[in-house]
């Protein structure tokens, strides 16, 4: 219809506007469009509708959305850039901060050293004063007095730190800004108090008991140890001493002899409330030396512990001393760590110099320093806390009366014992707080000095020939400390040794033991400087010096400071070694540098790359190869674990001196026979990637075949650090056990051990461990690489899944075969992986080292 006609039609019936109603009151909201939640449409839908289907409005909307997303993306990218810059800036600031902190630390150290020198001088004066009679009378006041002395000292420390603060305000502000005020306060607090806690803090056992009370010492009828406490008055000291001993009685069967040397007030009276203790009172004053000797005659225990009445034992000390004596038949005397009541070290064993003078090792130092915390042979131990077999004491005639009334009698006894071929050993785990100076109450100050001088010359005269081999007073005390060490070895590994977690640690640990047996003193440090218990404690108790932060600030610093002490420096793994080789060459030019490859890393990576057909991995392996070979070339000696690796290296680096230092395995027991065993065993730490690969391959390819061949037989997977992928393998027939602290029950329980490694390098400790327990192994060639095993004799070998499964099944069912393999395997371990074999290799190393030292 024509528009005009249409218009006329529409308009025709329209009447003039009606009379409109009044404007009502309207809600104000009606003038604004209500908010609609937009229906979310994905970009994909918009693209399909707008671009692919040609819908114009959608295209326009898409354009807006894309523009908005681009804008938001730009915004996000800008924010990301800012954040990255901020992180970089903060990183730079952190480096700066660390540098400043190190400066502060150095300044602080310097200051502390100055201070300590001043304190030492003051202490000498105080000692003179303490030894006066006035001091003796005022003994109970000392603790309080000590605290009073301590106060200005910490006040000075704080004042010093405060003086340092203004130039560091910028640093402080940035810490406060980046990490919050609490962190800043923590840092400042740590700095002010740190040193105090370490070297000058109040020892927690510093105080005497406040008064003599009732005390029962649970004495044993069949005492192992007789604790001999010589006294002359000082009954509160004696009480404090006895109270500590009483706690020990719960652990070790004891008797306690309180030897009252005819004090004005009888000890038995003064200590009326103390029961379970034998009070022996001399009819006349015998002096310290004869009092002790008399006590020995009264003792019923197998061992004698001479304990001054002003010495307060830390819990567990007697057991720790006993452990040393009983742990090795050649130990004659064990002595404790003595600590001043103010927390500083009094003595960590003693050195006798060529002139007969005696040094207390570590006097005045921080008793927690690592060098004071490993079991160590010493020239002598203080008689203030000394454990000896009663028989040995008597055989040597007790304390020699040559040294009457006192001084040097303990050193003389130790020299006698050593002369008899026994060792005198310092046990840091036994600790006594020693209020030195109280005990020798009958001596006057002048008397003490005279006796000291006299007795030193007596000792020197008697032991001249022995002392001739000792150094002149004060020369190289650090070396003199372990004078008997034939070889001094520093061993640097990546992490703390954890022999219950990985085979590498087992090998290193046992190597250390063999080195010690060959007369070496071993110092161990983890490249990450960690202090991890219980391993540090175990190593220290085994006589290994273990270093760690904060006492060591870096490996390079350690090498700089002490490198010259060592004959041999062993750096384990190329990546640990690489950064420190230069420092060794510079600061320890005399030392033989050994690179312990553990296993050849590049070989392992190269094999993984081949297995995975990965060029990226191959590139990584190439890089490792370059670095590892470089380290080998720069080392004097390279250790590998197998002849196979030695052969490879001798081809690759003909100039390198490569020694095989294989795994060490003690022959385990074999208690259970074929019939008493069931199940299969897979052992391997899962931090080691080849083990993960092996486990996954086994479960994926071999286990299904075994499920048919050996229905109902379970494979147990044991190993620490199992990742999710391994934990998820758990299924019928597959038992993921994870970490076990003791593998032996499993080695006795299972019938066949499997080792399906497809790549890797080095020696597989778990295979040898199985073999040493007579548990037959089915293995891939890779698993037993370098072990020179005869197939089907010492182990059963198979490569492909079916062959592997069949081998397992055969060994699992055939008792005859099982017995043959079991026995051959044990023989093989004995022949190739014993400590004797390891000792041969180490012997060669020491020869090289000595040769180098001489020429």
């Amino acid at each position: 219809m024509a528009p005009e006609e249409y218009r006329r039609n529409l308009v025709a019936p329209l009447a003039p506007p009606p009379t409109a109603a009044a404007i009502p009151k309207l809600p104000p909201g009606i003038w604004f469009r209500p908010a609609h939640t937009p229906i979310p449409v994905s970009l994909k839908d918009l693209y399909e509708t707008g671009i692919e289907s040609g819908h114009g409005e959608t295209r326009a909307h898409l354009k807006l959305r894309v523009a908005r997303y681009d804008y938001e993306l730009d915004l996000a990218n800008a924010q990301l850039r800012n954040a990255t810059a901020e992180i970089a800036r903060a990183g730079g600031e952190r480096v700066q901060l660390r540098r400043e902190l190190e400066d502060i630390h150095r300044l602080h150290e310097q200051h502390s050293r100055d201070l300590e020198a001043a304190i030492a001088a003051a202490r000498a004066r105080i000692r003179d004063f303490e030894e006066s009679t006035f001091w003796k009378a005022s003994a109970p006041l000392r603790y309080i007095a000590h605290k009073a002395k301590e106060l200005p000292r910490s006040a000075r420390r704080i004042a010093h730190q405060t003086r340092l603060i203004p130039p560091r305000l910028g640093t402080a502000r940035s810490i406060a800004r980046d990490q919050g005020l609490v962190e800043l306060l923590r840092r400042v607090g740590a700095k002010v108090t740190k040193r105090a806690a370490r070297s000058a803090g109040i020892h927690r056992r510093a105080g005497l008991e406040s008064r003599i009370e009732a005390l029962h010492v649970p004495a044993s009828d069949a005492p192992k140890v007789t604790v001999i406490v010589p006294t002359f008055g000082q009954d509160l000291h004696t009480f404090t001493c006895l109270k500590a001993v009483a706690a020990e009685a719960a652990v070790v069967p004891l008797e306690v002899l309180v030897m009252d040397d005819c004090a004005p007030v009888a000890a038995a009276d003064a200590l009326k409330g103390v029961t379970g203790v034998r009070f022996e009172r001399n009819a006349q004053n015998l002096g310290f030396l004869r009092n002790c000797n008399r006590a020995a005659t009264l003792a019923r225990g197998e061992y004698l512990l001479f304990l001054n009445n002003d010495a307060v034992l830390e819990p567990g000390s007697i057991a720790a001393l006993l452990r040393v004596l009983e742990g090795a038949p050649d130990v004659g005397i064990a002595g404790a760590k003595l600590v001043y009541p103010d927390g500083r070290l009094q003595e960590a064993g003693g050195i006798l110099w060529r002139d007969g003078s005696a040094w207390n090792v570590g006097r005045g130092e921080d008793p927690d320093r690592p060098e004071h915390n490993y079991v160590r042979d010493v020239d002598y131990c203080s008689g203030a806390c000394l454990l000896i077999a009663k028989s040995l004491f008597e055989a040597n005639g007790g304390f020699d009366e040559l040294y009457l009334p006192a001084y040097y009698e303990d050193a003389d006894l130790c020299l006698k014992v050593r002369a008899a071929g026994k060792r005198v050993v310092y046990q840091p785990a036994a600790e006594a707080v020693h209020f030195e100076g109280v005990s020798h109450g009958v001596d006057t100050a002048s008397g003490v000095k005279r006796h000291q001088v006299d007795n030193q010359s007596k000792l020197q005269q008697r032991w001249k020939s022995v002392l001739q081999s000792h150094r002149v007073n004060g020369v190289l005390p650090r070396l003199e400390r372990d004078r008997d060490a034939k070889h001094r070895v520093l061993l640097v590994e990546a992490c703390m040794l954890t022999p219950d977690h990985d085979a590498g640690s087992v090998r290193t640990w046992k190597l250390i033991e063999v080195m010690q047996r060959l007369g070496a003193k071993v110092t161990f440090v983890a490249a990450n400087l960690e202090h991890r218990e219980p391993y540090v404690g175990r190593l220290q108790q085994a006589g290994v010096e273990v270093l760690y932060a904060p006492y060591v600030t870096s490996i390079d610093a350690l090498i700089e400071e002490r490198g010259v002490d060592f004959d041999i420096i062993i750096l384990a793994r190329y990546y640990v070694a690489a950064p420190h080789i230069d420092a060794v060459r510079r600061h320890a030019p005399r030392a033989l540098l050994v690179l312990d490859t553990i296993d050849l890393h590049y070989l392992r990576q190269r094999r993984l790359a081949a297995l995975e057909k990965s060029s990226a991995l191959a590139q990584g392996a190439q890089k490792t190869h370059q670095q590892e070979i470089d380290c080998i070339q720069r080392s004097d000696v390279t250790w590998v674990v197998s002849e196979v690796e030695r052969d490879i290296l001798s081809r690759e680096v003909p100039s390198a001196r490569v020694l095989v230092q294989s795994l060490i395995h003690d022959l385990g027991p074999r208690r259970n026979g074929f019939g008493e065993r069931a199940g299969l065993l897979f052992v391997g730490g899962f931090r080691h990637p080849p083990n993960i690969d092996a486990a996954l391959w086994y479960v994926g390819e071999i286990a299904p075949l075994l499920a048919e061949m050996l229905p109902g037989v379970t494979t147990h997977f044991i190993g620490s650090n199992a990742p999710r992928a391994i934990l998820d393998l758990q299924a019928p027939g597959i038992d993921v056990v994870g970490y076990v602290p003791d593998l032996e029950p499993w080695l006795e329980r299972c019938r066949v051990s499997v080792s399906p490694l497809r790549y890797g390098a080095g020696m597989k400790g778990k295979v040898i461990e199985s073999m040493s327990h007579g548990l037959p192994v089915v293995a891939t060639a890779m698993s037993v690489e370098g072990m020179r095993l005869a197939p089907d004799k010492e182990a059963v070998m198979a490569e492909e899944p079916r062959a592997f499964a069949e081998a397992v099944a055969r060994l699992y069912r055939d008792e005859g075969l099982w017995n043959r393999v079991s026995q051959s395997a044990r023989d093989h371990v004995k022949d190739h992986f014993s400590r004797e074999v390891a000792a041969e290799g180490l012997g060669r190393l020491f020869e090289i080292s000595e040769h180098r030292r001489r020429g």
Partner: protein
Amino acid sequence: MQAPFGAHPLIDVIIPVYRGFAATRRSIESALAAKCAQPHELIVIDDASPEPEISGWLRTLAASGQIRLVAHEDNRGFVASVNEGMRAHRDRDVVLLNSDTEVPEGWLDRLVQCAQREPHVATVTPFSNNATICSYPRFAAGNGLPPGMDSRSLDALFRDYNAAVFVDIPTGVGSCMLITRSALDQVGEFDQQAFGRGYGEEVDFCMRASRAGLRHLLCADLFVFHEGEVSFGSDAAGLRERAQAIVDERYPEFQLAVRDFVKREPARPARRRVDLARLRASARPRVLMVTHAWGGGVERHVRDLAALLEADCEVLVLRPDGKEHVEIRWMRAGEEFEAWFENATQWRDCVAMLRAIGISRVHYHHIHSLPPQVVYLARELDAAYDVTLHDYYPICPQYHLSPDGAHPCEAATGAGHCTRCLDERPAQWPMDLGEWRALFGEFLGAAARVIVPSADAAARVREFFPYVEPLVWSHPEVPSAIRRIFKVALIGGQSTMKGARVLEACAEDARHRDLPLHLRVLGHVDRPMPLWPAVPLSITGSYAEETLADLIAVERPDAFLFLSQVPETYSYTLSAAMQTGLPVIAPRLGAFPERLRGYARHVLVPPGVPAAAINDALLAAMGAPESREVTAATS
């Protein structure tokens, strides 16, 4: 500390004058004529007007004491003039008034009352047709006066319907603005140095005042006409840009505040009250069209009718907005009247508003997504209604007589079938088919007219509603003449090197001269450029090499155009073009001349000729197969 507003009984009204005698005269005369209770003094600054008649007339006024005249020897600029006026009496509040305004009766009283309503007021601005954020009828736009109204009658509506209403605004607008003396005292006068010739100076002042904690108010019960951009002449745009840059630099918060204000538009209710009043006052009958929101043909039809009826009626449209609201819009160009009502709670308000507007007739086009009560809306408005059917919704809730939109309904009367069908896609109101048809049977029956656009539709409606007699009116359409357009193909990707810039220029020239040309790129262009329908240029998008022959066949071009800007060594695409025998237009460059030698229909254009020349050559080549250019080129 500061004197309260109105402390001095007199207010200075400052009118800077430069050029435009008629407007100036109207402005000043309106100010002289407007009766105001508020005592005031008119201070006119003649800033050395280039129009002598202005200065002469002003002198006459001054001589008779009607104004106080400050005449400059030389032109000092708008801002200097304003400042001078504001300095005339340093204790009086002032009103700035441009010389192209027209003020109504009592205007000053209402401005002053507004300033007194609130504490801490710096400026007061009235509504105006041309005052950005204080504009009416369209917000933030320049407006003329609504047809049929003068500034006084419009102001009367503001005065009556927005009595005592005010709104906080981010800045005042200088064409008519009251400034309190205390604000001047606190933040100083206009910044003559930065905004010497005008524009932006009042924003700068207002932002200073805002930062000092003072407020700016829109006086909603006053309308002052402002012609706009008389005093500044032609360089207004440049001035505005420069001023904006300074303001943005000084007050980064300004744009945000304005953007927020525009988004919230708090003065909208005040505008709508006046809109409503104008609708009521209109001499034309009001027609309400009820429709859906689906767009398409119905939308077009409704728009067409609104345009068709523009002179006869005020057309309002009611349509759904979402599922829960209806929207009412006044369809006249230049109007912004819109209102939204929630169906569930505000239907009564909607009806009340429509009754106040006074609806003469309702015209239903669709009911989709509207609430059921819409069926009775005309009855509620006491209005007759027409129904135009665009589909078959009264017959079936599926509207199109198809169960799925893909197949025609086979059993339109089979009850079982229908139940299943409606179970799947229920009616928009909860009804079964019977109830639905009963409702709409009644609805159609009561309509004054039922209009359908075709006889077929009429027959189908009658089949279900025999008592309805639909009128068959085909939709009103002006047949648009289809002219012959020549299609010119360009083959291959069009980069700058291949002549993309020239292509753009050709398209623009064709649009500009409305040439019967369409440029078609067989391929893509190297960057977004204006495309059809903005300009006669379109693209097929990239093609696969082996499909080019078919693409040319499908596209059926009338000629081929090559625009290479660099010498081609061969050009495969030229081969494809030459196979068609159609005219080829190419630059006299590279391999083109030698390859086209002997090809009957070709034109070689010299490189660098204007786009218009290329287009002319194209038209000539397509219009006359043996064109002069061909001869010329080959000679």
